[in-house]
């Protein structure tokens, strides 16, 4: 159901971004990249927010459910952060002429990606379910403060370094009418995609836990048999 909405929505977004909308006065055709770049960063941030909330809820309620929500959202967030970085670099190449500019947004997104990679590595390294949940909840809870601190400091850093010689076209393009609609529509499609992915990713985590429990059940039987032999 959600999958169908996403597919149809993606088709409409593609049509809107490539055909229906005009080229931007300042940025030209490159503006069409922003219809995928900006929604993907929005999805990434929303997913991080979900991880943050779910981590806090886990620390409070300590249920499998919140652990799985948090970790699922974090994995999806890392995919969308990677996509944001890549499309941002292509956009930078098209607009600024360099793929990597020490732009506050790009820089802090890179750090967000590294934070998320660390989260996944910690989860992968933790041997059992309870310590995995505990440790990743702490990292998940610190994710948002870290994003905020990194973001603020990088932004502040760039604003103090006013390099007037650098040509800069900012992301803040004039946006109205059909362009605004396209952007809002693409974001909505992205959020539906997030919901769909979250459900499926959650299900994977849930099934993996069931598989683990079945293995444990078998191991318990084997262990009890050991006693009688």
């Amino acid at each position, binding site marked *: 159901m959600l999958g169908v909405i996403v597919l149809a929505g993606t088709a409409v977004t593609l049509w809107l971004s490539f055909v229906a909308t005009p080229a931007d006065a300042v940025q030209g055709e490159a503006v069409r990249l922003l219809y995928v770049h900006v929604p993907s960063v929005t999805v990434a941030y929303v997913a991080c927010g979900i991880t943050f909330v779910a981590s806090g809820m886990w*620390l409070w309620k300590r249920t499998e459910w919140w652990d799985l929500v948090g970790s699922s959202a974090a994995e999806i967030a890392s995919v969308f952060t990677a996509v944001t970085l890549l499309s941002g670099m292509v956009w930078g190449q098209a607009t600024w002429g360099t793929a990597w500019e020490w732009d506050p947004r790009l820089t802090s997104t890179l750090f967000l990606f590294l934070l998320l990679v660390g989260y996944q590595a910690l989860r992968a390294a933790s041997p059992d379910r309870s310590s995995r949940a*505990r440790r990743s909840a702490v*990292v998940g809870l610190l994710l948002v403060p870290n994003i905020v601190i990194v973001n603020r400091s990088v932004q502040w850093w760039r604003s103090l370094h006013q390099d007037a010689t650098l040509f800069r076209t900012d992301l803040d393009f004039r946006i109205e009418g059909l362009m605004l609609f396209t952007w809002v529509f693409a974001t909505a499609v992205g959020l539906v995609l997030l919901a769909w992915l979250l459900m499926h990713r959650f299900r994977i985590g849930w099934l993996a836990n069931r598989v683990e429990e079945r293995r444990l059940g078998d191991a318990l039987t084997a262990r009890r048999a050991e006693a009688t032999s």
Partner: protein
Amino acid sequence: MLRDAVLVAGKDLRLEVRTRVGLGQVLPFAVLVLVLFGFALDPDRGILDAATPGLFWVTVLFSAVLAVQRAFAVESAEGVRDALRLTSLAPGGVFLGKAAAIAVQLLVLEVALGVGVVVLYGADPAGWALLVGTAVPATAGIAAAGSLYGVLAVGLRVRETLVPLLLLPVLAPVLLASTRAFEAALDGSPADGWPWAGLLALFAVVYLGCGIGLYGTLLEES
């Protein structure tokens, strides 16, 4: 809690006095990094002058990772973790104690590195108030974040590689802020530097708070 913090910090510092891992290994490592930077960025071309504050803090950061690793390697020894969990130490106290011991070692390291920078890179120390006002909150922040992320990896087989991956992105703002503040101090324009010192203080407060609040969860079962 403070009593426990003093006890843990005292134990860690006593361990350092007995083993001299910090003095005998981490500090020489830091000096070595300074020298290597000197080779990489030819001192005659003036790059070194401009990069001195950044190199100083990058070196501190790498040394801090080593110090954190060391601080928690001690606690992951066979049986010690069990023994520690059976004590009635307050988790917040353990956190503060570990952080304090790391901070003391880092401050000593920073003084030594500062001398090294002056001697090797020919930096001209100026703006003392800002230098100290930057180093103290920066060190507190590094130590607090370090002991929070350091304990996360305790008991994992991949501890050595996981700690830098978790810790360094978190410490990136500290590197940024302390570098800018030091640049301002050395340029003789301390007014530009104090906001960064404020940011460092904020970072330290956030991480000290988070550590005190979250350590209990991490010590419960690790």
